[in-house]
């Protein structure tokens, strides 16, 4: 299905692509299996792993080339069929080297069919000095399906050890319903040269930025309160951590509940002192969400 859809749009054999990976996951006989797979160039899929007894495959995307350089274009598309479940992660951090000229573009499309679950928990982004990175993510979630996505932006790397020396990091994530209604349109555009990076909230000791977006029928105000308590508790324990959570709304035109617009999902934004502080918090939020809809435990962030 996804293969057909992608072929139609001409993406399957895009000569411009540095790497492409198209995956389809379906629910068959109590298991969740990869039923369609196509790769091109520098993106590969490791053999799916089953990390727990849920039957959910962990799909690890690998870039054998190691890092991204100027003009690279990557496309990742994952379609999760009805009642199917998948976890998508990376083998290691996404490293974006100096990109003179054209930006590195990563395009991601995720679709989740009725009753399906997709969790996208990649390793952090490390943008080197003068790197220009653009990530476009489009997620289409059926009304009774679940999607969780995280992103962590590290302060990057420069030869002299100074932080936030990339030229531009832009992460754009759209969450929508199948009919096209927008749930959220989240854009992070971090340009250190144009503005003092402190304008985005980065400070010494608060150098990393994390985001978690989730859409699920189980998310309501009680869940958002649970997540808020978790953030508050963690802030008291970890110096430099500052986080917020909020509810996401159904698209305009969709009937809203009595608690206003907080029906469709939630968003967490966190600034913190390091990769593990930010990642641990996002994984704890993810674990709290998992408890709401099943019996999967906390994801082990160590690579398998």
């Amino acid at each position: 299905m996804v293969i057909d859809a992608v072929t139609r749009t001409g993406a399957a054999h895009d000569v411009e692509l540095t790497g492409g990976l198209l995956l389809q996951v379906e629910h068959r006989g109590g298991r969740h299996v990869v039923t369609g797979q196509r790769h091109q160039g520098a993106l590969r899929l490791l053999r799916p792993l089953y990390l727990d007894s849920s039957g959910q495959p962990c799909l690890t995307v690998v870039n054998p080339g190691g890092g991204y350089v100027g003009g690279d274009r990557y496309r990742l598309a994952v379609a999760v069929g009805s009642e199917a479940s998948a976890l998508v992660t990376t083998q290691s951090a996404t490293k974006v080297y100096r990109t003179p000229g054209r930006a590195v573009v990563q395009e991601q499309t995720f679709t989740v069919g009725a009753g399906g679950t997709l969790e996208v928990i990649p390793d952090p982004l490390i943008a080197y000095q003068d790197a220009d990175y653009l990530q476009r993510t489009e997620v289409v979630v059926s009304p009774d399906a679940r999607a969780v996505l995280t992103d962590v932006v590290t302060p990057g790397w420069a030869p002299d050890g100074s932080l936030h020396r990339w030229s531009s990091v832009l992460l754009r994530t759209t969450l929508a319903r199948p009919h096209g209604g927008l749930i959220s349109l989240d854009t992070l555009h971090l340009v250190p040269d144009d503005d003092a990076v402190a304008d985005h909230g980065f400070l010494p000791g608060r150098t990393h930025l994390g985001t978690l977006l989730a859409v699920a029928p189980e998310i309501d105000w009680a869940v958002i309160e649970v997540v808020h308590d978790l953030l508050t508790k963690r802030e008291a324990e970890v110096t430099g951590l500052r986080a917020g959570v909020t509810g996401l709304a159904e698209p305009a035109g969709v009937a809203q509940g009595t608690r206003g617009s907080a029906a469709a999902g939630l968003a967490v934004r966190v600034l913190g002192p390091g990769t593990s502080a930010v990642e641990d918090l996002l994984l704890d939020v993810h674990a709290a969400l998992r408890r709401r809809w099943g019996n999967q435990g906390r994801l082990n962030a160590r690579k398998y």
Partner: protein
Amino acid sequence: MIGDESGLLTVLQFADSALPTGAFSQSLGLETAIHDDAVHDEATFQTWLHRFLHHQLAPADGWAIRAVVRDGLYALRVDAMLHAMSLPVQVREANAAMGRRAVQIAAENFPSLEITDYAALVSTRRAVGSVPVVLALLAREHGIHWRDACAAHVFTSLTALTQNAVRGIPIGQNAGQRVLRAMHPEVTRAVDRVAALTEDQVGAVSPALEIDQMRHAWQRARMFMS
């Protein structure tokens, strides 16, 4: 620039911080910054307002006006995108409440075909309602350049927030006027930034501002709704 008086007067009436949309009760995260002592005087407020202008107003509201007036996007589409861009629920609801009120005022006083149509969509909940979208439709109707409409809307929003800062921090009225005067060249810069925004950059709000706006929902003893 504004050429005929009808356009000028429309902007003066509509882009006025006294327009009864309830802007006086919205701090849009400023109250959190005051509570956490990040904003406590004229200088720290000016820094906060500068960030709000360039990293919230310009990429969201400013873009919306450009999109409708210059780029010719459908008002309904811009309305839905603005709503989806506001992740913090209180900001989303503040903008929706002010937007619904603005649509009513416009429909009553400036009933063009497009305004009436937009008001009907809002009243049947097919659109959310948005102050910048209404102002953009008025600007298009009256032949006002998008940059003028954009500067007017942005400056009005800064004025409303400054009035709230005068009460909320508090700072003196004269300090408030000094901050607003200092924002004039920044508004021009912000409109320049809006002109140059790419499709990918639309709606890019400062994460620090968003975190403050999210946290406001749990703040005790609030003067403001957002």
